[in-house]
């Protein structure tokens, strides 16, 4: 397996073509987008890796810090620099953190891996509270950024919602403060048991106040001038993320409205797969990598080439991988959406399901992973098939369904409104269902509703859970809201009510 770093998920069309080439030449003609906004190739031969790393280097890419007990790829909002609800472009500081964490001399042999996410919008699209460090950026006085800092969140065996460490970290101290947090973790995080080695366990063991005291002691002791983030460094980096030169697209919305009216399938896609843009006449497009019955996150070489082409034609040659394993074009003119959709649909990339029940996150599971208890992919495919009807999905509305093949939780099952966890039941593959998780501002951990079932029983149970929601919901209520209002009991009853 070879995982390639895609810093904060952003890459160019040329880089995407390089990935397509690697998949075609060295792998089985496809790649897999991961929940850390990276790409993973599952069938690389060890002896080919030097050549592949050379090819990647020519495209300014590498595989450094994509595994190991170091600071991993910093993730960010897939709509960064485009979203209408954005208050600060998080890519600037994501890039600062990428630089700072790359080959960090002190923090490359931590107790365990370390994941940082950064968002600059009111709506948390990065699951900041499920990261070792989650940063929420906002503009402060004097035009410089201020950060809310969350620490100690994570999934895995011990799912924990991160806690707020600071409310008002000034930009100039960002690096110094993170150095202080990492130093405390490196010195005191547990190393005797890998399942207790993440920073979340240290924060729990010390308690938030004691942990904060330690960090502050370090922060006060260090020579902060050495770590101060100078405005000119920030500005130089900001310049690299300047907005593209937008055209005047004032009439685009009107044209789009006409096309939407004329074509219900297109209208459904626009409804689910576009996101409001800062600029009138533009929008961001999420290209679903989850076709009905498909494998979440898998993309063929031909599709990668096509994604590169459409990025060049429609979105300034730039793409973003999302932590939900889809691909985003940041800046598309609204009057060109119809043409884009037609190309995508013709190539198996036009599924209108972003944010819906079939926009499933699934880990590789037993098909690829030695630690798995159960296969995640076949059950994902069955569920995707089961709910593939567009009208039904639309009726169900926003629903996050996440699947992990074992307790390591790579598929973030605890953070799903509905989660599925693969377990081993007397040597058989079986699945537990969790309900009520969420990764957003209202972060919560899904709770197991009962004993494990077979694959087919689980698919049926989820169908009954969803039916119950449709029957019991109040007007306008999303699945997660109904779930919180009613509690797990009614859903549990139907899940196990085999006729």
């Amino acid at each position, binding site marked *: 397996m070879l995982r390639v770093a895609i810093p904060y998920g952003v890459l160019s069309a040329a880089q995407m073509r390089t990935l397509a080439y690697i998949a075609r030449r060295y792998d089985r003609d496809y790649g897999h987008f991961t929940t850390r906004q990276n790409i993973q190739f599952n069938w690389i031969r060890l002896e080919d890796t030097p050549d592949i790393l050379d090819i990647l280097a020519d495209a300014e890419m590498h595989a450094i810090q994509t595994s190991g*007990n170091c600071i991993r790829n910093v993730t960010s909002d897939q709509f960064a620099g485009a979203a209408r609800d954005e208050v600060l472009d998080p890519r600037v500081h994501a*890039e*600062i953190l990428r*630089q*700072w964490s*790359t*080959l*960090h*001399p*002190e*923090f*490359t*042999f*931590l107790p365990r891996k370390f994941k940082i996410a950064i968002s600059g919008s009111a709506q948390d699209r990065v699951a900041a509270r499920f990261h070792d460090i989650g940063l929420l950026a906002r503009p402060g006085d004097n035009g410089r950024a201020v950060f809310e800092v969350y620490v100690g969140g994570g999934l895995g065996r011990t799912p924990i919602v991160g806690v707020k460490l600071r409310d008002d970290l000034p930009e100039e101290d960002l*690096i110094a403060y993170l150095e202080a947090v990492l*130093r405390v973790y*490196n*010195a005191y995080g547990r*190393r005797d048991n890998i399942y207790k080695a993440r920073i979340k366990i240290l924060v729990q063991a010390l308690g938030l106040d004691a942990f904060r005291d330690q960090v502050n002691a370090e922060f006060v*002791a*260090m*020579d902060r001038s*050495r*770590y101060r983030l100078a405005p000119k*460094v920030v500005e*130089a*980096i900001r310049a690299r993320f300047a907005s593209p030169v937008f055209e005047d697209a004032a009439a685009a919305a009107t044209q789009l409205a006409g096309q939407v009216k004329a074509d219900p399938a297109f209208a459904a896609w626009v409804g689910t797969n576009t996101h409001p843009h800062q600029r009138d006449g533009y929008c961001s497009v999420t290209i679903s990598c989850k076709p009905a019955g498909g494998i979440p996150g898998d993309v063929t070489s031909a599709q990668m080439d096509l994604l590169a082409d459409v990025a060049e034609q429609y979105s300034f040659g730039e793409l973003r991988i999302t932590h939900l394993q889809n691909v985003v074009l940041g800046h598309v003119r609204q009057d060109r959406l119809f043409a884009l959709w037609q190309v995508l649909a013709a190539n198996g990339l036009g599924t209108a399901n972003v944010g819906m029940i079939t926009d499933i996150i699934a880990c590789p599971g037993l098909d690829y992973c030695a630690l798995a208890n159960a296969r995640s992919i076949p059950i994902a495919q069955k569920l995707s098939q089961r709910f593939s009807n567009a009208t039904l999905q639309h009726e169900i509305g926003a629903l996050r369904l996440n699947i992990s093949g074992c307790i390591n939780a790579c598929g973030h099952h605890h953070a799903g409104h509905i989660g599925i966890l693969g377990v081993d039941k007397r040597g058989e593959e079986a699945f537990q269902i969790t309900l009520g998780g969420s990764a957003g501002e209202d972060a919560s951990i899904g709770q197991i509703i009962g004993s494990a079932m077979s694959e087919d029983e689980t698919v049926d149970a989820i169908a009954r859970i969803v039916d119950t929601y449709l029957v019991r919901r109040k007007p306008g209520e999303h699945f997660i809201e109904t779930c919180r209002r009613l509690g797990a009991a009614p859903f549990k009853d139907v899940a196990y009510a085999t006729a």
Partner: protein
Amino acid sequence: MPLLENGQIVADGWTLVQDDQVLPDGDILVPLSRLSEGLGRNGKGRLGVVLTPDARVEVLKEALPRLDLVCLTFPIFRDGRAFTQARSLREHLHFAGAVRVTGHFLPDQYEFLLRCGVSQLVIPEQSDLTVWQKAHERITVAYQPSVLNEKPEGFGFRRFLSP
């Protein structure tokens, strides 16, 4: 075992004192538990102390002006606590003596060790010095300040490491 300092193998004049041994004359390296005894020794040679990875370097605060060497330990290369200890010795306690590492670490970690303030490495017998040299020369830029005070140069945090 060979001692690597400034890219060369140098003579190691220090004697590592075992737990139950009477403190000899000359330059001696004692465990933390025998530090005060070492400090009380009359004249005749320099003093160094060995820290285990779980020790806080702050415990040396008082003694540090009288120490010439602090030796840090890697039980296994993945246990990176010595990086933080080295850095704290240099940055917080402004220790100007030698910082040595012993135990299990890899040539790949050489540059990181130097940048955290380590100045001496106890490496395995028969080590091929060119491997260590290559590890030192492979990467020529860095993106963070370190105790080496590299001069920022170029875009963002970029700075050049000295050869």
